[in-house]
């Protein structure tokens, strides 16, 4: 049986590598790996061939609710952006804090953190606020390479930030650990590491610019845009989040997607310019397609890996690795798994890992929080490099990708160390979870 499982795993790796070599996208490569693994497994009826379609279809449901959160949250943020709200906030940040560098940097960091924190996807941060924030950072005299590096790290941290952290959600769902109490174990390190990143990479003014020239070059804000038009939709969203926790027994369960829909309706009504919502939704879904299909393909891959025993094999390998070696290797394994599978890495390696860490007495919630600081780093690594490529794109950095990646090394190392320490000392840090509840 074990030989069969090892061969199935090899078939899946080969199918994935072949597809990547043929320039097929990561999402479809994962789907093809699942299909190939399922067909190979069928030779020994693991799974039986007549169950293969069902396994693929059933796996596609694993993250359906996450898909709906992605879509509704991103449409909400896209409306804010289309209405001119994002440009308004960025322009005013530059206008009022150009000479107060610390405040300007921190505000730009917050602006980048919010969309990813709400949606769980760093790419949404870059798609929605990436371009104006990159411009603003440029006007603060930061070189493009460093602008790209800042955006990459902050967008990655935004995905890890609460309330929506997809890695933590996948791990919690897969290990029957409640997805609660993550606010402080995620929020505090994200803010500290974010601040460290913007100050390390952005404190030094490397290029000359003046406030006047900066303001002139910034995108136009539609007439009539006011601070309350931007603020109210966010107040509605957070108001709903808070209200549902304060009055859980009088209000019905409405779920995050509908909360975003309600907030989006407010954003639409308050927009100073008319927005074609159907066109905007269509374009948003088009931009989001790689993320959405990733979630479907990851679910399928996870299902086939379990049905064939490959997930069990990986799980066994994780449990059998000596503890110290395991901790050290996490610094590499976690980002590389993200680079190869995006969110699939959390399902394939993360779930068995968290089971194991939990069983040896570590605090699962803090350990998951620590691990989910490491995963976003992998979004800069090939073959996917989703966030890395987007950061380079929105900051218009034209030189080699590696030179950009090299410039992220200081925050990369610090984030890795913090993440690992959170895993190793998770039991001592459990007060963060208690304070969150």
């Amino acid at each position: 049986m074990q030989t069969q499982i090892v061969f199935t795993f090899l078939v899946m790796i080969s199918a994935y590598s072949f597809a990547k070599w043929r320039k097929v996208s990561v999402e479809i490569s994962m789907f093809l790996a699942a299909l190939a693994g399922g067909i190979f497994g069928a030779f020994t009826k693991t799974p039986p061939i007549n169950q293969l379609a069902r396994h693929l279809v059933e796996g596609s449901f694993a993250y359906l609710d996450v898909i709906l959160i992605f879509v509704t949250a991103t449409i909400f943020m896209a409306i804010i952006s289309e209405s001119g709200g994002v440009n308004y906030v960025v322009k005013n940040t530059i206008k009022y804090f150009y000479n107060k560098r610390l405040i300007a940097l921190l505000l730009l960091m917050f602006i980048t953190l919010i969309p990813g924190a709400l949606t769980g996807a760093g790419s949404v941060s870059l798609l929605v606020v990436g371009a104006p924030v990159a411009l603003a950072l440029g006007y603060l005299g930061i070189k493009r390479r460093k602008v790209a590096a800042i955006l990459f790290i902050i967008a990655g941290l935004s995905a890890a930030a609460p309330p929506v952290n997809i890695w933590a959600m996948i791990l919690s769902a897969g290990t029957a650990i409640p997805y609660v109490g993550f606010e402080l174990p995620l929020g505090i390190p994200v803010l500290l590491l974010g601040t460290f990143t913007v100050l390390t990479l952005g404190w030094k003014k490397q290029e000359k610019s003046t406030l006047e020239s900066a303001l002139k070059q910034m995108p136009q804000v539609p007439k009539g845009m006011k601070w309350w038009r931007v603020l109210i939709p966010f107040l509605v969203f957070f108001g709903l989040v808070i209200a549902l926790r304060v009055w859980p027994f009088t209000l019905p369960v409405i779920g995050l997607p509908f909360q975003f829909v309600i907030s989006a309706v407010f954003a639409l009504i308050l927009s100073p310019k008319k927005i074609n919502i159907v066109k905007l939704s269509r374009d948003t879904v088009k931009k989001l397609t790689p993320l959405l299909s990733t979630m479907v393909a990851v679910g399928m891959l996870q299902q086939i890996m379990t049905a064939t025993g490959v997930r069990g094999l990986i799980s066994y390998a994780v449990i059998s690795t000596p503890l110290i070696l395991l901790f050290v290797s996490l610094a590499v394994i976690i980002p590389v798994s993200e680079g190869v599978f995006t969110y699939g890495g959390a399902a394939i390696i993360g779930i068995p890992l968290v089971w194991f860490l939990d069983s040896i007495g570590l605090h699962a919630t803090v350990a998951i929080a620590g691990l989910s600081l490491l995963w976003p780093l992998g979004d800069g690594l090939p073959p996917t490099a989703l966030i890395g490529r987007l950061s380079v794109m929105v900051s218009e950095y034209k030189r080699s990708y590696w030179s950009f990646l090299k410039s992220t090394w200081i925050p990369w190392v610090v984030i890795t160390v913090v993440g690992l320490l959170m895993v190793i000392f998770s039991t001592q840090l459990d007060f963060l979870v208690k304070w969150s509840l």
Partner: protein
Amino acid sequence: MSRIIAYKILLVLFIGTITLIGGLQLYHHRHFQTPIVAGPGVTEVKKLSDYGPGLDGTITDTNVFFLKAEQEGGKMLIIANTHSNEPAALLSSLIFLENAVVEKGTLIIIPQFNNSGGRNTRSGDGYPLYFEIKTHWGKKRFRMGNRVASPLDQWPDPDVYVHYPDRQLLSYLDIRNTNRTWPGRPDGALMEKLTYAAMELIRKENVDLVIDIHGAETMFPVTNCIVAPEKSMRIATMTSLTLKAMEGFDNHVEPSPSGFRGLSHREIGDFSDALPFLLEAPLPFLDQPTGPKTEDLLLNGKDPFLLKLSKKGKLFVPYDENGWPMSKRVGQHCSAVLEIAKQFTRKNPEKALLISNTPRYKQVVKNGIGSYFKDPSKAKKENIFHN
């Protein structure tokens, strides 16, 4: 026809076929019926919706079987399929349902408690859709369900589930987990209504003992045990000691934590006069480091990875080449239920509960589970029940 259109048609046909085949299998699974044959002891069959609002007409409503003796005595409720991916519970409850004769007192059985969960599948975990138990008249087929209710019956989930009434924050998924929604409420989410109706049953029928049957991973410390709150602890301890001494298997006692809310062994005790117990038997199928998730693994519990891990001392139960067959797990549950009734009777002779014609551990292991299931094709129509 342009190439692009040709590709589109091909893709629609390819993925459409996969979707259609897989979708139909999942649809059939949701609507598959396993006939339950009411045994000689069954005196009345009700619906859980008779006890609480909001269930009537939904797929969540479920059968409640009463086995009432002519002589008054103690009352015991057996709940199975709280988690429908732990099938030893259902099989054990059916052995009681199809065979038991109650000589004194009343036995109440809800074999498919989370009926929605029993008709749900676990996405991403690659379970088989069904499993079959050999009997002398053929194979009896059962659905393999999920730990939580189907989103087709309760959707959406909240971002965080706030437990009623303690306000403890639990995972969003747990709002569909009927071992987190106790004691429930009449105007809550559907699964809260389900547990509320069960609480009403317990209170209105003056149930003395409630046994919720489960299964757990071999790598999870709370396995092969009886979980009991303070008020049930004495009977649980006596049961555990007697089973070890008389029948030779371990079934240690775990205290029900008072700080972890929503669980049957905690809330039933706190919100009624009944004594709750939760039975756990090892279920290697649920462990992470196993080979393929096959029907064979589910029924026999044999796995090469677990065997290796057992030798490294990583499991919480004894494990050898024989695995953990279903008959062993079901046998343990049967003995534990009978022993709890016996210990309760010993302490409360005025509320005696005497159950006969039900096998114990050794008999189930020797004869096989299937030997206790009746052939539905030979049973009277009025004795056959579907949920």
